[in-house]
C-alpha cells in the first residue's frame, strides 16, 4: 500500500484533535487556564 496522499491532512487533524482534547481535559481537571 502506498503512502496515502491524505496523510499530511490526517496528521494535522490528529494534532488539532489532540490539542482540543487536552485543552478540555485541563479545564476539567485543573479548573481552566
Amino acid at each position, binding site marked *: 500500500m502506498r503512502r496515502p496522499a491524505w496523510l499530511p491532512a490526517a496528521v494535522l487533524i490528529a494534532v488539532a484533535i*489532540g490539542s482540543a482534547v*487536552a485543552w478540555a481535559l*485541563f479545564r476539567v481537571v485543573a479548573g481552566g487556564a
Partner: protein
Amino acid sequence: MAFGAPEEGTSGRDIALLLIAAAGLAACITIVFLGMRAVMDIGGACAEGGPFVPVQPCPDGAPLLMTLSIFGLIGFGGLGFYAGAKVGGPWVSLPLLGWPALFLSLGWNFLEYGFWPEGGGWVWGWIIPGVLFVIMGAVPLWFAWTARHEATPGGSGVAVASTMGFRTSEGRALRVSYAPRPSVAGPAPAHSGATGGDRDLVARLERLAHLRRTGDLTNAEFETAKQALLAEAHRDPAGESGGTGA
C-alpha cells in the same frame, strides 16, 4: 529496522499509530503549555507538602497532568519515531517537530508574561528565559526548514533525520540526500580475476536494492534498472562494459 521503509510496507496500522503519536504529542505539549500558564498566573512557582509550609499551593490537578504529559512526550515521541519509520519517507522526522513546538509555545508564555504582566512594565526574569526558549525552538526548526526539499517524497525523505545523526540498520549515516548518488549505470571499480564481473553485478544490484529501501527509487524504477543491469550482464558476461578487466 531501516528508516525509509519501502512504500509497499505502509500499512493501515502504521498510519494509525503515527496519527495516535501526533495527537498524543500535541495533547502533551498543550497540557504543558496550559500548566505552565496556570503556575505563572500564581507567581511562577508553587509547592505543597513536605516539611515546609506551603506558601503557594499549586493549581488543582496541574502538577499531576504536567508530570504525566512530560512522560507522555517521551512515550508518544518514541511511538512516532517507530510508526514514522514504518510509514517511511519524511514521516520518521515528524516527532522532531515536537521540539520546536514545545519550546516555541513555552517561550511564548515567558514572553507574554514578561512583556505584558498584570502589574505593567517588563519582567526581565520572564523575558530572558523566553528569548532563550524561542532560540532553542527556532534554530532546529530553521535547520528542518532548510532541509525540507530533501524531505519531500521526491527526495530521499531522510534528510531531517540525517541532520539529527540517525543511522540505518546497516550502521551507515543517513547521508544519501547529500552525497552524490551511486552511479548505477556508470563505470564500476576494476576487479581482477575471472569473477570480477559477477562481483560487480552483485554490488550494483545491492546498491539498487539499497536505493529502493531508502525510498530513492520506486519499485517500478528499481525493476527497470535491475532488468537493465541484468540485460547488460547477459550481453557482456565478462563485465567489459562495467570497466572490469576480465
